[in-house]
């Protein structure tokens, strides 16, 4: 196969996704792919339907129409998606292909390993920073605690599992530079630290796809820079691909491998950052002018 990586090695394929709220169509017939090992950015003006699309992907909304095929490991097998669609099941028996639009939100996080953060930060504010990272490892720790019973009588296997969870949390605390605040309440952290902690918490579950809703919102230039470096590191480690909604164009252009642009619920562009930057429809959407005018503008800009 030829073409860019998000077509050749896709892990997520969204087909004809439509989400209607009563008479309002927030997302209208959107299709795109996300490549494994890419940082994919979803951009668009306010109200373009980015967060709605995110909520459909992570199961917080049930899309009105459309299909979302996902594969946490290996290639996304076209034939398997088709057979799965025909059966009415949520995921294939071997765990290779998931149809996210059929799954509940916690199943998507648990089985398909899609983690997400929120536009308005949702930490467990009354719990300590370390506890936030331990709760994120609930899925591993619960069987290790014998569903509570081994832990109640204090078996060593449980202690061992908890120590492993703490060291994983410590690793992430170190990476986001919050080790010194591990025992403070998460709600007491400054805004930028809370954003980073939410990313670390999502990463503690070892996700295959990390979905970030405006991770750089409210950060200063220095912090955005650090965030971009962190996301690049996460991608380069190869375990986790990243899908993000972002308004900060400097961040988007610097770190993305692939950019999808939405406007009024429809996809208007899809390609590499360089391609998208030249796209007249995108310029029109962002500058708020008609498309032919934008073409003239971009023509002037590039002699």
């Amino acid at each position, binding site marked *: 196969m030829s073409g860019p990586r998000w077509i050749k090695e896709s892990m997520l394929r969204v087909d004809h996704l439509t989400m209607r709220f009563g008479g309002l169509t927030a997302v209208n017939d959107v299709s795109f792919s996300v490549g494994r090992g890419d940082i994919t950015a979803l951009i668009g003006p306010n109200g373009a339907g980015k967060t709605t699309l995110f909520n459909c992907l*992570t199961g*917080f909304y049930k899309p009105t129409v459309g299909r979302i095929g996902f594969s946490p490991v290996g290639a996304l097998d076209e034939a398997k998606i088709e057979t799965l669609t025909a059966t009415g099941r949520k995921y294939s028996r071997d765990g290779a292909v998931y149809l996210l639009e059929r799954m509940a*939100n*916690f*199943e*998507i*996080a*648990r089985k398909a390993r899609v*983690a*997400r*953060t*929120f536009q308005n930060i*949702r*930490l*467990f*504010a*009354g*719990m*300590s920073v*370390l*506890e936030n990272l*331990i*709760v*994120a490892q*609930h*899925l591993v*720790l*619960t069987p290790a*605690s014998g*569903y*509570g019973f081994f*832990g*109640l009588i204090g078996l060593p296997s*449980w*202690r061992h599992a*908890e*120590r492993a969870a*703490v060291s994983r949390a*410590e690793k992430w*605390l170190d990476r986001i530079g919050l*080790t010194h605040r*591990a*025992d403070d309440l998460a709600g007491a952290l400054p805004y930028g630290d809370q954003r980073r902690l939410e990313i670390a*918490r*999502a990463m503690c*579950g070892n996700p295959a796809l990390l979905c970030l809703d405006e991770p750089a919102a409210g950060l200063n230039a220095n912090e955005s820079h650090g965030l971009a470096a962190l996301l690049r590191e996460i991608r380069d480690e190869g375990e986790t691909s990243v899908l993000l909604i972002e308004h900060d164009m400097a961040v988007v252009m610097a770190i993305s491998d692939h950019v999808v642009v939405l406007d009024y619920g429809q996809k208007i562009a899809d390609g590499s950052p360089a391609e998208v930057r030249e796209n007249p429809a995108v310029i029109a959407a962002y500058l708020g002018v008609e498309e032919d005018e934008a073409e003239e503008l971009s023509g002037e800009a590039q002699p």
Partner: protein
Amino acid sequence: MNDPLSPVSRALKDGAIGALIVGGLGFPVILFRADPDFNNVLALHFRWPLYFIFVGIGFVLRFVLSLWNARRAPKIEVHAAPGKKRGWLAPAGLAALVAYPLLVLALLGPLPALKWVDTFGVQILLYVLLGWGLNITVGLAGLLDLGYVAFYAVGAYAYALLAPLTGFGFWALLPACGLLAAAWGLCIGFPVLRLRGDYLAIVTLAFGEMVRIVAVNWDVVTHGEAGLFGYPGLTFFGLPFIPGPHGFDAHFGLKFAGVHKLIFLYYLILALALFANFVSIRLRRLPLGRAWEALREDEIACRALGLDTANIKLTAFALGAFFAGIAGCLFALRQGVVTPSSFTFTESATILAIVVLGGAGSQVGVAFAAALIVGSSELLRELTFLKAVFGESFDPTQYRMLLVGLAMVAMMNFRPRGLVSTRQPTILLKDGAS
């Protein structure tokens, strides 16, 4: 400060406003009193002295409070550093609890000790057990349950019905009562999975009333308002607490005394309450307990992390209900009679007040609050010397609700987050794994 009034004149002004409010509110309530005369016709009396006493009290209290607030207002609140160890409190409290019934028995003798072991020992411990049970649902998982007494009732009725029917002893039925109540906890849990906050409170309130009304009306099984009695009582590992050669006292060569049964019941409840305490403290440090607290903090974030919030809510309901069922079984043993009137909404409200006053989520705070609320209202009965001051018709127990109300207002003013409001993290980085 740009406040032109001095603290005293400000307090005087506040006091006047307070007196006006008390006067306005008390005008119809305190001033008028309607008594039937000989012809059974209501005659209106005016109680001017009493009315002015209340207005005066309103003025003085508001004046003092205003002065007090003015004095402490500019101070900046200094919070104690977290993690301060108060290790002596729990062992000392435990030792006092273990020694209490024997001490009372030694000091007062068997007959007067009965009341002190029963109302101040067994009853308070029952509420501590209930408070710790509800603390799991309300304090840890953040699910506001106003119908908690329903599970208490299920436990009590389960014992009173099953004991004569099956012939099983107390030890076999105790876990059965707990499990039945937990099953009811699951039953109420399923329909309310999607509800939170106010809506959850309304539904659980209705559920609590439903259980009581079924108990009132299902004559064939529950004997209605008359209730169930005559079921087998408490035995000491098979030895009944009865006078005569086959009883507990004869077997151990003691003189028969009713208080022995209550002392045994006291230690039994103490052991079970400590078990409940152990379970909740341990669970807080386990994934399930942390998931409960995470659920209280943010349900949506829980789902995004893959936590099955439905299961987590159900376990919180079921475990809270389990301890209520156990408390209900012990209640049936203590009372010797189970009637629906023991399981009114007031009971739910009292248990919830204990949890809220104690500081939701805190074990020690809940125990103190139980002793305070239940103990103080019982202590009022002991204040017979007040009759000498206020006259023979004065009944201090009539003022119970007034005092509870005052305690609540004082709490909201001085400790709005409960007696013990600092939350200890379940794990600290510097200790490594717990």
